[in-house]
């Protein structure tokens, strides 16, 4: 869901990272949806070579995915689709690196950083890059690079790049003969909803191949077979369409020509887990946080997608086993864990108990965290009484009459009406009028779906503004920044110190706001 300001923020990021030309092509795709090369050229009024190069940059950095729609009414040319989420991920690279650094050593972090910086790289390219920044005599062997790459691939932080141009055939077409593997067409495929989801699903290599370091010889045969029916892979087939094959993978053996990239999904999943744990910590206590974190770890393997609603069921024993793997958890007794599990299930059901097993309700945790965020905005914008009113409406989840609200929140009726009215004007709540005889009753409720969308849009707007302001502050203080440290004296020193504080505040706010954006958009 790319909101208006989401698009503006994405374009701001692309402009900062790749300049105006690429941003122009990106904007065209963001605003108009998937387009063919010809159409992008027409709409942007740029030259063919400009558009081509811009698309190549965007593909290289995983912000655009090409595909071919093999459907009767579809245009007979390669389409380019912009991947909004991947653009926004670009402001999270530092978070991804922290995540890797918590589990692996420096070389893995550097490797991840290289991939984040360059988008897609082959093993050889990674190796070259490593050695180009090493001091002389300190060269790193290809084996060492491969070993670290292996670690990252095994933990799913790095994956093989998706197909450069998957072909999408129409779903549900029993009559149409399957193009390559008729025998497998009976396999049931749950059809993803949006075109974007379909394209991504079609482009992603099958799980076994996606995270495999095995050479191409072994997989070539399987790969063709394993793809699902609605997305046919044209391995080795010469493109008839105007696909923009990235030329970064020219040369080298098959093995080294495999392109690798960072797997954003895995990072987002980790950050989602972290957010869950931290949320439980602030809401309940450290014990509950340790238990949740252990449960996340224990059920991790069963998780198929990022936005999993519920974890796999876990037994008390398996949870305890995981708890004591953690240093902090070792202080916990069996009873303590049991008590924490109870705590997690007795208030809002963060954990559901079912036949002696325990299931994490991600949705419940996320929903409450989202409500917290919105409520705190309401508190700051409209005050304490409004906060209470908002919470009572949120809790009710249905239409409530003014008097009823006023009674439950202990706010004077007139004041209640005023507050409700203000929030209604800002689109925070929904109002309905009912006329009974000569009396008009006002009924109110929170329309979560629209409100959450508004809030997310405002978050993107705020993120954009933070970034603009940061650039402005730095620009204003160019003079101070250019001064060598030993010449910063008097007023210049004061200015420099201020700028340092400004930067720190803006940067930490950006990170925090991005956490909130993920909460509403990615989790």
């Amino acid at each position: 869901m790319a909101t208006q300001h989401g698009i503006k923020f994405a374009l701001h990021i692309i402009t900062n990272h790749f300049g105006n030309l690429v941003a122009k092509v990106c904007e065209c795709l963001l605003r108009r949806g998937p387009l063919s090369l010809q159409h992008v050229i027409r709409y942007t009024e740029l030259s063919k070579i400009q558009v081509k190069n811009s698309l190549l940059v965007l593909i290289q950095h995983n912000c655009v995915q090409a595909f071919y729609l093999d459907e009767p009414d579809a245009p007979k040319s390669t389409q380019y689709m912009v991947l909004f989420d991947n653009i926004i991920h670009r402001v999270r690279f530092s978070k991804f690196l922290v995540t890797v650094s918590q589990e692996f050593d420096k070389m893995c972090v550097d490797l991840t950083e290289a991939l984040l910086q360059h988008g897609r790289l082959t093993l050889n390219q990674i190796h070259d890059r490593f050695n180009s920044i090493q001091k002389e005599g300190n060269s790193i062997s290809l084996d060492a690079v491969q070993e670290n790459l292996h670690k990252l691939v095994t933990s799913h932080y790095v994956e093989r790049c998706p197909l450069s141009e998957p072909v999408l055939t129409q779903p549900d077409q029993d009559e149409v003969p399957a193009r390559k593997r008729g025998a497998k067409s009976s396999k049931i495929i749950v059809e993803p909803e949006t075109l974007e989801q379909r394209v991504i699903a079609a482009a992603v290599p099958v799980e076994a191949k996606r995270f495999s370091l095995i050479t191409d010889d072994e997989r070539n045969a399987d790969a063709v077979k394993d793809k699902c029916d609605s997305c046919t892979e044209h391995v080795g087939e010469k493109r008839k369409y105007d696909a923009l094959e990235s030329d970064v993978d020219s040369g080298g053996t098959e093995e080294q020509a495999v392109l690798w990239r960072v797997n954003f999904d895995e990072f987002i999943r980790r950050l989602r887990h972290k957010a869950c744990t931290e949320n439980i910590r602030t809401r309940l206590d450290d014990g509950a946080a340790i238990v949740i974190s252990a449960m996340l770890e224990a059920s991790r393997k069963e998780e198929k997608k990022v936005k999993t609603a519920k974890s796999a069921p876990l037994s008390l024993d398996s949870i305890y086993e995981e708890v004591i793997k953690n240093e902090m958890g070792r202080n916990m007794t069996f009873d303590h864990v049991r008590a924490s599990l109870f705590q997690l299930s007795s208030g809002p059901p963060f954990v559901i108990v079912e036949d002696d097993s325990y299931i994490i309700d991600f949705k419940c945790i996320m929903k409450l965290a989202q409500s917290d965020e919105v409520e705190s905005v309401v508190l700051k914008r409209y005050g304490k009484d409004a906060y209470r009113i908002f919470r009572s409406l949120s809790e009710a989840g249905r239409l409530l009459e003014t008097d009823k609200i006023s009674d439950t929140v202990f706010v004077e009726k007139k004041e209640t009406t005023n507050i409700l009215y203000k929030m209604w004007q800002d689109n925070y709540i929904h109002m309905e009028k009912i006329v009974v005889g000569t009396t008009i009753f006002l009924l109110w409720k929170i329309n979560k779906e629209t409100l959450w969308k508004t809030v997310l849009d405002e978050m993107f707007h705020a993120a954009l503004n933070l970034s603009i302001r940061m650039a402005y502050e730095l620009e204003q203080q160019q003079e101070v920044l250019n001064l060598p440290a030993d010449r910063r004296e008097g007023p210049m020193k004061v200015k420099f110190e201020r700028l340092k504080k400004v930067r720190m505040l803006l940067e930490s706010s950006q990170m925090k706001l991005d956490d909130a954006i993920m909460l509403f958009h990615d989790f």
Partner: protein
Amino acid sequence: MSRLQGPSSLKRPRPGSNSSTQALTEHEHIVYELIRSKQDMGIWTRDVKRETNLQDAVVNKSIKALQAKNLIKEVVNIQSKGRKHYMAAEFEPSKEISGGAWYVEGNLHTEFIEILKKLCVKQVERLKIATLEGLHDSIKRSGALNVDLTKQQIEQILRALVLDDKIMEVKSNGLGDFTRIPVGKICYKCVSKAGPKIGAMASIPCGVCPRINECTPDGVISPHTCVYYKKWLEF
């Protein structure tokens, strides 16, 4: 505190107390009967005029006379405090008119409510896990109040505290702190980190900005010119 009027303190209407109505003029009689017929809802002067079809001056005069004879009284209608609202003397304003038990003379009794809230939080803190009945009891026994509160009233206070995010509802499992409480019973406990958390949006200017819809990168209102930012970044 005794100003708080619980439902129990409602005076029952005394029927047939019309001994003093004999000395009324015809107009006064009409007005009085109308007002009295409205029982505990009372009536607005404008409606008296409309329903009796009498002239303004006559109605006003009659009302004055009836008030002087203590047959009717002026009451505050919390729906519209500015309007003159009358009721026969023997009635007490209904909940719709008075605002209910938490209102005194048309005003919400906020100080009293605040005292009660504090008292409840203190008791929940002390008990760690509390049921409604337990709280009702312990408040009564504490002798901190010189009025009797009903269980419903305590419950209302607890609901408000939940909305304040000061306490939370939990269900008993009959174990640990809940040993004395039946399984499944709703209990109250204090929120570990009381008070609302300040979210990411609430801690930056744009998150709570009233002008956000007018703010654009190159507009009159922009992050460059923003007064909220200026203030925020004052070090």
